């Protein structure tokens, strides 16, 4: 019998279970990662954003919420032009951060045999 109900997985963020290992690994070599204040200047100026959805702000937020895959997926939408670095008011070297994240995520995936 079909009652028209379905179970949806919860989209809530449970901070008790987030895996921050990637965030912490990145923060160890890019400590400025921690001072992002989510202003969105990086995404606003990004030439790729309208086409690929790239957003450094979201990458950082996803890492803080343990969403590694979402963060990594976004990286392919960046063309490393460096415009975001020019506008970041907190002086974060966002371009360098993206490169470091690519490197770490690649190594981490290899370690985990993915």
């Amino acid at each position, binding site marked *: 019998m079909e009652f028209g109900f379905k179970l949806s997985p919860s*989209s809530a*963020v449970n901070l008790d279970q987030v895996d921050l290992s990637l965030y912490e690994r990145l923060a160890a070599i890019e400590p400025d990662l921690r*001072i992002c204040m989510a202003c969105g200047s990086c995404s606003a100026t990004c030439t790729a954003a309208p086409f690929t959805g790239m957003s450094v702000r979201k990458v950082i937020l996803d890492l803080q919420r343990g969403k590694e895959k979402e963060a990594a997926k976004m990286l392919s939408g960046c063309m490393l032009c460096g415009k975001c670095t020019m506008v970041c008011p907190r002086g974060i070297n966002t371009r360098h951060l993206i490169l470091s994240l690519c490197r770490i995520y690649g190594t981490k995936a290899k370690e985990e045999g993915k």
Partner: protein
Amino acid sequence: MSKDNIVIIGGGIAGMTAASRLLRLGYTPIIVEESDHLGGHVAEWHKLFPDMAPAQDIVQRLAEEVSAANIFLSTRVLFINRLHDTYIVMLNNGVSIQAQAVLIATGFNLFDATKKEEYGYGIYDQVLTNRDLERWFTTGDDPRLNGHEVKRAGFVHCVGSRDVKAGNTQCSKVCCVTAIKQAIELKEKFPDAEIWCFYMDLRLFGKKYEDFYINAQKDYGIHFIRGRVSEVSEGLDGRVIVKAEDTLSGKPVKVTLDLLVLMSGMVCNATINPIATSLGIDLDSDGFLRSKDNISHIVSSGRKGLFLAGACTGTKTVPETIAEANSAALDIHLYLTEGK
């Protein structure tokens, strides 16, 4: 030495600073303080932002500076009557003073956090207020914290502030930076703790406050989540579960904590209202005493010989309070010397 009597109601930072200046100007002011000690709220604080200076230092220094004043502790003003150009101030110890000038420096009250029942203050042992935490930093003694290792803590901004339903639309101004200060102090005590601040806006307007914020993020790894805490409940293990929206992700968020600190706001201290209004001072829309105007005459009541200083007219930091008290002392001096 001037024979003019000046009564200062309230012996907090505002009242003490004004008294200290007036002593140097040759007056012997009379401080009427309701509690049994001088210092007001600052006497309860541990360290002051933004330089982390010990709060006791300033309280002690001012107490020494005003030791030559006439100080009535544990004393209240019953009423004040105006008689020509003077004020008759009646105290509850039977003393009555004929004063040429009166300074109201009665400060603020901390918002009563039990009114925000959904945050569980007074219901769950793991929920403290900013005042409780300051006291614990100072005394090291709170039954709710004694012997506990804090592993996960949260700070709730805007408790009773910016809240129409709580009757306070105003921003309390000091609690964003106080949350950051307290989070840093807590992290210093428990270096392995994870700490989250739940904010609606971060209002870090003062000198070096933004640096303090960057410091908290970078050197102390404190997490900031934009979203107002909606409710707090108790889990099976006795810890509290905090719910909010992570508005930057657009997703509900929850976290289990062993300590939650509520940043209670600064609200008006209504005990002085009957006296103030009887002398013709109105209340402003935020409930605090109304100054003559909020730009160039904050310390003036608009009534002859009647002055205001400090947090009785609105939320103030310590440096702002001191600046106003100094300015009120000078205005009183000019009023008494240049003729009424």
